[in-house]
């Protein structure tokens, strides 16, 4: 066992637990269990809001998978990763105040609540809850696997033991603390991610003998490594640009992100979150992917991309510092998983169970169900993660694209386009999910663009056309109801 590396990791875990149990006080005291457990009473300040968005967004792929690909592809992949700078400001600006105000008017606690009030349709609720559950399960599994691999490589424990240690630590603080624990631990984890990136970037540049030296040895090995086109000249401008939709503007459609856009206290919190979020997300994405590229001359010949980041930390840093830096990907994974876990749990408990199975459940019954469901989901994901798939980053992106195709238009057009109605929303969600899955299976990266692009266009057209066609119909229905 590598104790100098493990000790800082253990301290980090203890801090996270402490925050989780501290949040439990609020869960116990709160008058409205649901508001508190799934949304933290809408009390997030700017710093916490920014950190929880960044930490939820930044995941195993930003810290393990991403640097691994950057290692093989060169600066072209850092260039691609910088697309994510937009998420720092775009989501909060576009959903922004309108979403915050409307969500409060609707008394919405989850994204599905919002859609339910906006479209007044059972089908919309069930389709959205189902897509959240399906896609986020695959995403959670990917994250779980990433976390377990990391613990495995650091401690030398077996994959199964590593998985159990990792999962149980996450489950404990999510189950007891709810959304507030998730958001607060995200803040701690965000800080760790930022610090880890900074320390490792500086140490890597130093170990490589300065930037000019690193760049010239990259160019000597393969000039394409310092071009925007990738090592084998395969990253075309059209393909790379289409990531602006997948990991840039499309992030507006990710439920785990949108739910955060209704959790903040006031305008001030939102304003500072935009600025802090842009700084942190930009720095982490730039730093982590650059580290992956700069690792190449220092550690040549690594075959499995996912091991670049742990190996590099051990090589260029003293053991204790490596422990701190390696807490960063762990933090990234935990903070993504905890958000997904609470979201899937809210989809089951709040959106399905309370809406359609038992609408008048007592507060203590809801409490029991929420704890129970969260635990069961965690356990199911463990089972899935026990026979893990290989490439973390792609599995994770699969769920990104799927969720975006389903939710982006019902959310955005629902907010800004009065004519949009439930028929449009249902069409758009079904077309989005269906076309994404079909294209991904049978015709990935159509027209040289990332698979996500076509489904987003198709679901947009579906939404607009069907809303227009059924417009009269809906007005008649509404007037009859009144």
């Amino acid at each position: 066992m590598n104790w100098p590396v493990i000790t800082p990791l253990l301290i980090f875990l203890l801090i996270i637990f402490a925050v989780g149990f501290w949040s439990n006080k609020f869960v116990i005291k709160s008058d409205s269990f649901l508001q508190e457990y799934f949304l933290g009473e809408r009390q997030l300040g700017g710093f916490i809001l920014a950190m929880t968005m960044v930490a939820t967004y930044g995941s195993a792929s930003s810290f393990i998978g991403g640097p691994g690909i950057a290692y093989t592809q060169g600066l072209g992949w850092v260039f691609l990763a910088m697309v994510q700078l937009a998420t720092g400001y775009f989501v909060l600006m576009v959903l922004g105040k309108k979403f915050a105000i409307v969500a409060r008017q609707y008394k919405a606690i989850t994204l599905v609540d919002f859609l339910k009030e906006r479209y007044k349709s059972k089908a919309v609720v069930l389709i959205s809850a189902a897509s959240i559950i399906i896609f986020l399960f695959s995403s959670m599994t990917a994250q779980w696997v990433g976390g377990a691999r990391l613990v495995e490589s650091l401690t030398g424990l077996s994959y199964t033991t590593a998985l159990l240690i990792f999962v149980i630590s996450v489950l404990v603080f999510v189950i007891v603390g709810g959304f507030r624990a998730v958001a607060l631990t995200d803040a701690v984890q965000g800080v760790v991610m930022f610090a880890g990136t900074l320390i490792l970037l500086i140490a890597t540049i130093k170990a490589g003998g300065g930037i000019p030296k690193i760049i010239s040895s990259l160019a000597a090995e393969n000039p394409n490594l310092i071009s925007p086109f990738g090592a084998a000249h395969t990253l075309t401008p059209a393909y790379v640009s289409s990531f602006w939709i997948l990991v840039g503007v499309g992030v507006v459609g990710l439920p785990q992100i949108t739910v955060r856009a209704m959790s903040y206290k006031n305008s001030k919190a939102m304003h500072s979150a935009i600025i802090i979020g842009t700084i942190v997300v930009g720095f982490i994405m730039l730093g982590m992917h650059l580290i992956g590229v700069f690792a190449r001359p220092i550690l040549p010949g690594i075959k499995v991309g996912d091991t670049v980041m742990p190996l590099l930390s051990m090589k260029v840093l003293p053991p204790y510092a490596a422990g701190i830096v390696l807490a960063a990907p762990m933090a990234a994974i935990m903070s993504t998983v905890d958000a997904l876990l609470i979201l899937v749990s809210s989809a089951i408990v709040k959106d399905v169970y309370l809406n359609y199975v038992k609408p008048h459940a007592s507060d203590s019954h809801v409490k029991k169900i929420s704890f129970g469901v969260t635990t069961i989901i965690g356990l199911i994901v463990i089972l899935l993660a026990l026979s893990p798939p290989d490439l973390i980053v792609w599995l994770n992106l699969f769920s990104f694209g799927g969720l975006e195709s389903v939710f982006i238009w019902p959310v955005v057009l629902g907010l800004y386009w009065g004519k949009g109605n439930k028929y449009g929303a249902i069409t758009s969600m079904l077309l989005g999910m269906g076309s994404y899955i079909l294209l991904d299976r049978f015709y990935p990266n159509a027209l040289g663009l990332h698979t996500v692009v076509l489904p987003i266009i198709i679901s947009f057209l579906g939404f607009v056309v069907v809303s227009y066609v059924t417009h009269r119909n809906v007005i008649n229905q509404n007037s009859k109801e009144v």
Partner: protein
Amino acid sequence: MRKTVKPRDKRFKIAHREALIGVILVIINFVWWYGFGYGLGSEKVENYTYVFGLPAWFFYSCILGFIVMLVLVIISVKFFFKEVPFDNEEGDL
């Protein structure tokens, strides 16, 4: 459904303007990123120029681009974003 969302709420006018600023910023961001990235990066690698040891395309597109966007974001938020209350006047909950 439009009855629950009063379309003439003054706060929505502010919200709409801010959403539009978000869209404009993302377009500027994209043009800057693409322009420098492919404008300078499409040269042959032997002809690259370097800034602080990094290829010029990368420096201008990703590093300077990050700083420029950050400045634009700060300016937008400080000067164009308005503080509005989120709860209804009649008091929510």
